[in-house]
């Protein structure tokens, strides 16, 4: 029995925790978000039995999508085994009984914070992002009404000011995560909080991407095969971070790496942030 969740076995919960009315309301918001790629659709966010900082927006989206045949994968910073990922996975297993997996290829729904798996997603998959701040303009425009007008008129000059200022002061665009994108040539959107390394994976992705922000009560979507352009200048094109090292566990040269401390003596190594990707590569190597 789980003791880390505010969850009582005697209570009767709806399938996937939320009641059917609420799930229907969230599904309507999702459909609207898919119809208008990158547009932030308001929805009536509900309480979830997990702390707010744990991505209750993403949880509600996942809860409203889950069916009995789904197979759920949950990652946090690319890893399946962090406290956050484990708790969320257990929670959904408890309240819906759906199967879970750590293998990206086997999952039908992937709930994530901070990363997109390295393995390319397919048209049978949906990736759900837990998003703390869905409004890319928030850093410059504090008034909600003003931000909405900027979106309505697609006057995104203010966002380019950030890029201009970075290049003027530092010689390059300094944003390395939560890097804003234009979706389908129309709406400015935040893919927060993934590293910009993952931005290209959103471009014409085969999988549907859904972003749920619980506190801000917004859902936005990037439907399959949608154009996703990271903001840049013609003479300062968007680039992703490159790693000098390769993964010390699996040897991958194409994955996003985390630096880890090996011992008290300060020895360091780089390993894949996507633990499932790394494990699968190591498995392949031992088999061959």
């Amino acid at each position, binding site marked *: 029995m789980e003791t880390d969740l505010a969850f009582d076995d005697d209570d009767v919960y709806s399938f996937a925790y939320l009641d059917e009315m609420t799930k229907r309301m969230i599904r309507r918001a999702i459909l609207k978000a898919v119809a208008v790629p990158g547009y932030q659709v308001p929805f009536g966010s509900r309480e979830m039995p997990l702390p707010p900082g744990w991505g209750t927006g993403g949880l509600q989206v996942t809860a409203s999508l889950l069916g009995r045949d789904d197979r759920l994968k949950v990652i946090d910073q690319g890893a399946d085994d962090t406290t956050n990922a484990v708790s969320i996975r257990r929670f959904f297993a408890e309240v819906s009984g759906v199967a879970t997996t750590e293998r990206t290829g086997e999952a039908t729904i992937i709930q994530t914070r901070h990363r997109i798996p390295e393995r390319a997603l397919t048209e049978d998959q949906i990736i759900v992002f837990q998003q703390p701040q869905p409004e890319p303009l928030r850093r410059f425009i504090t008034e909600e009404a003003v931000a909405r*007008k900027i979106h*309505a*008129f697609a*006057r*995104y*000059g*203010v966002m*380019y*000011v950030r*890029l*201009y*200022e970075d*290049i*003027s*002061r530092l010689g390059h665009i300094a944003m390395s995560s939560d890097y804003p994108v234009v979706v389908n040539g129309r709406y400015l959107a935040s893919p927060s909080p993934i590293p910009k390394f993952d931005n290209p994976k959103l471009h014409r992705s085969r999988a549907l991407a859904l972003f749920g922000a619980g506190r801000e009560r917004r859902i936005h979507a990037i439907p399959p095969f949608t154009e996703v352009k990271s903001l*840049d*200048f*013609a*003479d*300062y094109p968007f680039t992703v971070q490159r790693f000098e090292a390769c993964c010390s566990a699996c040897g991958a040269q194409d994955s996003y790496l985390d630096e880890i401390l090996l011992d008290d003596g300060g020895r360091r190594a780089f390993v894949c942030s996507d633990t499932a990707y790394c494990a699968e590569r190591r498995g392949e190597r031992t088999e061959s």
Partner: protein
Amino acid sequence: MKPRAREILRVERLSKTFGRVPACSTVSFSLRQGEVLGIVGESGSGKSTLLRCLAGRIQPDEGKVLVASDDHVVDIWAMDEASREQFLPTTASLIHQNPRDGLRLDISAGGNIAEPLMAAGGRHYGSLRATALEWLEKVDIEGWRIDDLPEIFSGGMQQRLQIARGLATHPRLVLMDEPTGGLDVSVQAKLLDLLRGLVRELGIAVVVVTHDIGVARLLADRLMVMQRGRVIEEGLTDQVLDDPHHPYTQLLVSSVLQV
């Protein structure tokens, strides 16, 4: 004979009332390329409300504001809001009396000039930078200050930066609200010189609202005198100031009125 310059702005019977107080009553005038129209009057005469109706900020109750676009003429208050927001920023610039209302103090001088260019689609850093430098020079701000925050600039420098930001997009129409108000007399004189030079050089159409007869005399080709929302006298600047007909204009010119 020189062909007449193109008409850039035509205002037809424009009226705006706040509650029961009429701010502008049936104001009509026309403005051609390269022409500077001064609107003078005391505070409360309706001149600032008129300017805001032209700038798309205040919707008039009645009347038309017709502005020339590339190949036709648009009535800015007959457009939907989205079209107006698309059209106006690239066509007309509003220069505020207080530079803090027209600048972003938390971004660099160069960024302030570049922002409207980027909003209009500028996506080449090198050319944005070059344009910003060129405009800083035009308004007598040294190029090395391009990355400074305008917060640390003097009032006169801030106002010059606001003018650079407003003109860099090459608007057809520039609307100025007391552009030298709040500045020291010596700073005012320098700014007026600069404005006069730029207006002549660029051949833009300008509406300048001021309570300062000196500013009007130096900048404007034609004058409109407003009192309680109505235009009471208009004509060539020299003619109006040297030979005022309306008693109110005579008072204004003789500086008897404390404005």
